[in-house]
Each structure stands twice: as C-alpha cells, then as structure tokens.
C-alpha cells in the first residue's frame, strides 16, 4: 500500500536511481570518502569523487564497487543508505519500498547475494535482481517479449555485458570485466610508458571523455594534459592526441569486440538472422566512446548503434521491470529475477 518502486543501477562508476512516476532522480559517482582514523564517512558521490587522489593521509576515497560487483560491502551499504535517504524525502522515508538492482550477467551467487543483502539493509521491503543486459534492453525500449533475437551490449564502468535476448529471456550472454575503468587504466599506463607522465584516474577519465576515440583514422584532436613527470618528479604539461588515446585503449576495445563475436558465434542461427536485420544496440556510458559502433560494425558486419540516453538505459530498465514484476513472476521467467524477503531467498 505504502512505499514505492525503486530501480537502482548499482554501477562501478555511477549509481543511478529510478523512482516510479518520477524517473531518474539521482545520478552520482559511486565513490565514498572515509576518515581512516575514525572510520567516519565524510562524503559520498560527487563530493567524494572530487576528493579522489587529493586526500590527505587520514582520508581515503573508496570505490566500493569493482568490476560491476560489490568489493567493499560496508561502504556499498553506507553509500546506498545515503543515496536512498536523498531519494526518499519527507513522509515517504517512513515506508519501505520495493527495490530492483541490476547485476552483471556474469556475477557469482555470492556477489548477487551481497547486492540483495545490501538492498534489504538499506530498507527495501522486497529486493529483486535483474541482469544488466536485460535491464538495458528494457530501458532501451526494445520489445524483449517478442520472439525475435536482439543483441544488447552494455558497456559500463566495470563490466561489459553482451547478450542476445528473445522471448523475454537471455539466450546467450557474456560478461567481460572490461569497462570505462579499464579504459582509464589503459590510458594511464600508456601515458606512463610513452610520455613518462603519471596522471590520476580523474584526468584519465576526462581525457577519454573529451577526445577518446576507437578509430585511429578519425580527425585528430589534441588535449593539454597535466601530470607528474616520472623521470624528474616534477609537474609537467603535455599535449595528447586522440590517436594516442585510441592506441591506449585499443587492446581493451579489441577484447570487447572479440566478446561480441564470441556471443554471435554461440547465437542460434534463427536469432542470428534477426540480429543481422536489426543490428546491435549499445548502451552504457562506454558506448559513448567515439567510433565504437562503427568499429563493431566493421568487425562484425552487423549494424551497430547507440541507444538514446545510453547511460540511463539500465536504471530505466530496472524501474520498468519492477513495474512489471508480477507479470514476470506469472510468466515464470527463471534466472532473471531473484527475490529476497525476510531473509529467505526465492527464485522464480
């Protein structure tokens, strides 16, 4: 009777919260700043992200999620608690809500369990899980129920989920531990090796967003980058081209394309035919990388395009799926949803 439906995209890089009838109400980086001496949480979200790499010895900025799953349970719970309090204002905070959280399709049972526990701990009346590619497909407005093959590639901060969906279920899926974070790491490693320049995670991410591309033949753009010279130990400023970025992330992008090819190889032929007609839909923040759809099209021979609002697809999908949860239960979509209620676990 009371309470509402909340969909959470508990991403490695960003947490998005969708509230029924309101839409996406929160989009914050999944970062927590903690005082090591007292164990007190100092900041969460954007505020904490600004502290990353700039904190004194006693304060550390933690990213509680790694590779799409919970790496630090306590911090994840604290972060979720903070976000839920921000989302639930006024009278509504006295009621418990139904919550649906997405997990990578390759998450283990322990990792799924941790997410469920965290959701219940922060005050969910009922907690459900949905696999990321399914949520992404629903969020991208794909008609997942029709008996036609659809391919979704969700490139998140920590993981890339590739799946072929038909008749409301995942036919083939693959979860790669490649995502925006790995791209950043690649850029940092490349700059260290090629330019002897050490940069932070935030700078690497900025570089990727500003001039990052997958296609080396694209028109070159330059960006001024500041960091610490590894030889002299002094701050230095260099100009980095988009071609350098494409070289830095080339290896990861290639692994991603290989993953897509693998899934296509495992796809039943009838569905392959549908996918050739319809193409591959990219979602997630990683899909905004310039040239990625073209590169996938080039390597697979299938049209590939980015969905509208790719970063919000998963969160929107969790919300929509939660609205239809009763129907999904009635249809017996096993493997999609896991319900945890009063400490018991139920699969349907």
């Amino acid at each position, binding site marked *: 009777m009371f309470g509402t439906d909340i969909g959470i995209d508990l991403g490695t890089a960003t947490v998005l919260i969708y509230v029924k009838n309101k839409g996406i109400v929160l989009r914050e980086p999944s970062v927590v700043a903690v005082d090591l001496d007292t164990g007190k949480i100092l900041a969460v979200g954007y505020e904490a992200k600004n502290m990353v790499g700039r904190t004194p010895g006693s304060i550390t900025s933690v990213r509680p999620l790694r590779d799409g799953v919970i790496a630090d349970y306590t911090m994840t719970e604290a972060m979720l608690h903070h976000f839920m309090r921000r989302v639930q204002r006024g009278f509504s905070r006295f009621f418990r809500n139904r919550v649906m959280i997405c997990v990578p399709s390759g998450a283990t049972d322990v990792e799924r369990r941790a997410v469920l526990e965290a959701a219940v701990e922060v005050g969910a009346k009922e907690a459900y899980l949905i696999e990321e590619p399914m949520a992404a497909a629903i969020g991208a407005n794909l008609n997942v*129920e029709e008996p036609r093959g659809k391919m979704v590639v969700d490139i998140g901060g920590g993981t890339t989920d590739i799946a072929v969906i038909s008749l409301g279920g995942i036919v083939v899926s693959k979860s790669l531990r490649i995502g925006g974070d790995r791209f950043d790491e690649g850029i940092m490693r490349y700059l260290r090796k090629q330019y002897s320049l050490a940069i932070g995670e935030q700078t690497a991410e900025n570089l990727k967003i500003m001039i990052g591309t997958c296609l080396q033949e694209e028109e070159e753009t330059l960006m001024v980058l500041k960091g610490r010279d590894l030889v002299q130990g002094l701050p230095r400023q260099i100009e980095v081209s988009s071609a350098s970025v494409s070289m830095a992330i080339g290896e990861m992008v290639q692994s991603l394309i290989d993953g897509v090819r693998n899934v296509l190889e495992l796809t039943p032929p009838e569905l392959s035919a549908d996918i050739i007609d319809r193409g591959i839909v990219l979602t997630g923040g990683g899909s905004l990388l310039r040239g990625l759809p073209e590169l996938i099209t080039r390597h697979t021979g299938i049209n590939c395009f980015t969905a509208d609002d790719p970063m919000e697809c998963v969160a929107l999908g969790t919300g929509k799926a939660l609205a239809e949860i009763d129907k999904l239960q009635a249809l017996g979509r096993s493997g999609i949803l896991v319900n945890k209620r009063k400490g018991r676990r139920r699969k349907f």
Partner: protein
Amino acid sequence: MPEHRDNTLQDLGKEIRRKREELGLSLKDVHEGTKIRVQFLEGIERGDFSEFPGTVYVRGFIRTYLQFIGAEEFWGEYLPVLSEGTEKVREEEPSVVGSCTPPTKGFKPASRFWIFAILLLVAAGSSWYVWYTWDQNGVPTFAVREENSEEDKTSANKPDSGAAVEESVSGKPAQTVAGEASETGSDRQNGSVPLSADQPAAPLAGMASPPTAAELVGTNTPQSPPAAPEKKKDRELVITADGDCWVRVRQGTKTLYERTLKAGESVSFTVKERIEVTYGRAGSVKTRWNGENMGNPGTTRGVERVFYSPDGKTGRIAR
C-alpha cells in the same frame, strides 16, 4: 498531426535521398557501409517506418545513415518528429513484457490495505475510549471499577480473612457484625447496655487486639454521597446531618477530620482502622454503619463519642 508528421518525415527522407544522390551513392553502397538493410534505408527515404522492428531501431538506423552520408544536421530535425512518433508508437506497442496480462497497479496484496485500515480504526477507537472514560481527577474510572469488582470478589471468596482491613469489613463477618451492631443499637436505644469509657471494645465483641496500622479515607460531598462509596455501604460509616453538627474523627490521638456539618450534608468514611468520632450535637445527625441505619449516635442531643472498628463493632464511649 500525424499527417503533418508523415509529411515532415517524407520531406526529410527526400532531403536525405537528394544528399545521397549528390554524393553519388546508391542504396547498396550505403548498405555496404552501414550494414543496414536496403529495405530499411528505403523506408527512411520514403518516411515510412511501418516495417521497422521498433522505435529504437528507427532512431538508430536514421542516425547511422545520416552519419554515413555526412548529413548529421538533419538529426536535429528528425528528433522532434521522432519523439512525437514515439509517443504514438508507445501507445500501440505492447508493454515491456508483452500483452498477455494487464499491467499490475500498485501492490499485489491489496488485503494489506484493509489490515492497516482495521488496525488504524482499532487504535483510534481505543484511544477514544481511554479519553472518554478518563476521570476528572486524572484517574481512569474503569480502573476504579476494576478495583471494586476485585475487592468484592475477594471478599466473597475469603470471608474469614482478617489480614486486610477492607476484607474484614465486608462479607460474612460484616453481616455478623452488623447483626451485633444492630443488636447493640437496639440495646442502646433501650438504654440497657451503656458502654464503658475505659473498655470501649470489651462490652461489644471481645476484640482480640486493636489494629496497629491505621488508615482512613474520607470524602465530603455537600448534597449527596458519591456513587462509589454507596456500593460499599456495608463497611462504611455515613454521617448525615439533620441540623448543624460539629464532627471530629480521631484515630488514636491523631485528628483525621474535623468540621461542622451543615443541615443536609453528608460525609462518609471508609473505616480501615478503629476510629473515634465525636459528635458535637449527636441528636442532629443520623449515622449509617455497615449498611445499617444506626439512627442518632447517642442517647443525648449533646456531645457523644462513638468508636467504630473495622471488624464492624461500634459503641458509645462514656465520658
């Protein structure tokens, strides 16, 4: 509105086609470059999206096509038209997981609402009852009633118990004492059994020993006695004044009550320990002891001293 939309889409399609022809590209070339089926490319150029598998594909294919022919400026014109169309398509499209069952509204267990509603009503009702039954003095009346019933029950079950003062006053012993008292009263009226001043209790009942602890409860109501004491007539002393009369109640050497009662006034005492009552004008009052009318407390119209004991005994104290 749809006609306007179709016209716009057709116009945009024509523009795209013109642009493609300017570049010298055939639809097959575009298909080679974008891997979009020629059928869909023709659909875009015609402005007819009926064959497309879904809105998301319409948008994706158009954007890819525009990027390929380098006409991305048209995307801005497509966007509002497509958004308009999306709403239309959404209405027709089945919901997220098919149209086999209607979408659920709110929470499935609707019975919970009634549980909450009933609980709310019960809570409201009980709080109203507590408020309604709360006594003026801040004492809930139902608590008093409960106490009374418990006392009655106790006295009925344990008539011989002499431990508690209240118990000894009512029930079987009370009746016995009342009998004795009435006998005493009749004797007194006859004047045949005068009480001794030195041995006040001895002539009447042979009381073993006077109680050590003493308690007296007195209420004074100007016109009528309160409802609760009336129920306990059998162990109470009620003094009703016909005319003005000074009354003093003492327990040992301690004065518990001292007042001049006006004509018509009535005062009642719950006697838990032996008390001595001094009537200034004994002829002007009527007493009721253990539910029995005792008439005037003394033979004279002047000062009289009478003792009342919790075991039901009473007697005049000679001066």
